[in-house]
């Protein structure tokens, strides 16, 4: 993958074209337009180098802090961010969050903290279940109203896939809920 850098709000893609004593590099901006330069660098120590661009030699000092390059040249300081390949790939999955929680495996209810009709916040503890000697907290995946509790009460057992709780998100229209396991 060609390295991408972000500088002053603009993203640039750098592609090496030809390699000799110096490299011919094409720098393409995401706002259109590109130009080519002959560039080479000779490192004198770990942060001090001689940068040659189109025949002109300058001294630069550069340091990388995680994903940011700090470059000191000609008495000025520049900051260039290295664009991560994964974040550049984009396409974050925006699945609509569902308020329905199903049991991951058969188990038993230890404790229920809410009742139908309660308003809950995202992350709020709804019930405590136990399976294979492991306790699991069932938390609200979004804020809303508790539509139904699919279990009879503390001590009730359920199968894998049983609907434990369904929450209607605050700004969705009412849907009819189904009771019972599958």
């Amino acid at each position, binding site marked *: 993958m060609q390295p991408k850098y972000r500088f002053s709000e603009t993203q640039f893609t750098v592609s090496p074209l030809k390699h000799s004593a110096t490299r011919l590099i094409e720098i393409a901006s995401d706002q259109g337009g590109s130009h080519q330069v002959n560039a080479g660098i000779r490192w004198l120590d770990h942060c001090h180098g001689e940068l040659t661009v189109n025949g002109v030699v300058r001294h630069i000092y550069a340091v990388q802090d995680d994903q940011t390059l700090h470059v000191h040249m000609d008495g000025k300081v520049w900051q260039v961010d290295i664009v991560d390949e*994964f974040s550049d790939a984009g396409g974050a999955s925006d699945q609509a969050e569902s308020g329905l929680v199903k049991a*991951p*495996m*058969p188990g038993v209810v230890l404790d229920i903290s809410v009742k139908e009709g309660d308003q809950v916040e995202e992350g709020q503890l709804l019930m405590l279940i*136990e*399976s*294979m*000697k*492991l*306790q*699991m907290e069932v938390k609200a995946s979004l804020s809303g109203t508790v539509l139904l509790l699919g279990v009879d009460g503390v001590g009730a057992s359920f199968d*894998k896939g049983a609907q434990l709780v369904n929450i209607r998100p605050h700004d969705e229209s009412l849907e009819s809920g189904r009771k019972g396991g599958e």
Partner: protein
Amino acid sequence: MRRIESRLNTHSEEFQKYRAHNRKLVSGFQQKQEEARFKRPQRDIDRLQKQNKMMPRERLELLLDPGTPFLEFSSLAGSMAYDGSAPSASCITGIGIVGGREVVINASDSSVKGGAWYPLSVKKIIRALDIAIENHLPVIHMCDSAGGFLPLQSELFGDKYMAGRIFRNQTQLSKMGCKQLSLVFGNCTAGGAYIPALSDYSVIVEGTGAVFLGGPPLVKAATGEEVSVDELGGARMHTSVSGTCDYFAKNEREAIAIGREIVAQWEQKPKTQIQRETPEDPWYDPEELYGIIPDDIRKPFDVREVIARLVDGSRFSEYQPDYGETMICGFANIWGYKVGILGNNGVLFNDSSLKAAHFMELCNQNKTPLVFLQNITGFMVGKEYEQRGITKDGAKMIMVQACSEVPKFTIMTNGSFGAGNYGMCGRAFDARTLFSWPNSQISVMGSDQAANTLVTIKLAQLKRQGIEPDEKELAEIRNEVLGNFENQTSAYYTSSEIWDDGIIDPVDTRNALGISISASLNAPIGDARYGVLRL
């Protein structure tokens, strides 16, 4: 490699509660360890001084390269046995650096009962030599032992993995080309005499060092001959008349200096090369581990949060992230070494067992060492799962794990129950090193289950005899079982019995793994081969 994105809220009440709980556990452990290492009755300290002997840990300081780490094994061995009269099982073992070379140290602790070998001392020494064999490491013995602890001789002499195994291991090390050096600081009597005798090089100290198959009292009783310790097996005699020992030392310091000079002559074979990058500290603070592990063994936590505080840069390339979600597999670096990590997020199902097996095959193919972070209550039970073959799938996971050619390292981070222990490379499966966190617990089944099972059996028994169950009697049985369990499932019991190579502070895990991985690369890594997988 992508960084793990931590979802942890380090300001939550839960985090603070867990952190306080674990900090307390760790400081309790550190105190016990400090006592086991250094607390000795004054009369024992005085006795050593009168004999012109250094304290064993002083000898170790002088022997090891300055400023280098020492990975000590089983410092709490014997802590719950023998009424506590044998701290650290009267010996010090570990991996250290001498002359730039990784070596296994086996040092008698003569400040404990004269360095006598208790059954657990023998076990600890054998384990240290097993580690040397598995990792192709040279060994330095610091001999100063009164010999076997006679009142318990039946537990340390006759069986296959008792005292004789120490000497058998020494012969195998020699056969493999792993060098052994003995520094004789005190008595090497009877069996103990074979440690320097089977070592490739030995140094003996004038006046205090002695090597003989039978000491003066035994000789007198056997043949009537009267002879002094020095005449019978002292330094001058063995280095100039019998040739049993190689170098004469005027005092302990000189002995250690000669020892270091000897080690400097040893060839340094090239180590096995595996993928290695520049080391990087974890992005998240390892101290946060204290707030991740719950105060109740039944409460879950996301093992990815633990991984994020163990590996370089908190970078983790997760394998099959959407499949078999109760098993977390992925590649990471620890101190620059590429490793494959397996961690538990719940019980093992069919898909998680298969995922683990496949991932371990990938690591074997890639010559990548495996690190197991155990927190497992077991495999899923039930009709549906049996019909889908969970027993077969568990067997496949165990087969691949146990036949792995790459070095394996196990950390008991929390629970280790039942067959889950096997799949995740428990003690029986030859991890090169296995460490426990102070909060960890291990048993064949949970304490509640065991107590209920035993009560059920008692009830059935009473019914058969036509006796009405006495509630009080049943409660007593429950409590007794629970009490025993609490005692015997703790990390302290495990470590005392040497079912692990020591308890460590969770924050030290990274360093322990780094040293272990580095040491393991002294041995070659074979090509992948497995037994039959029941498909």
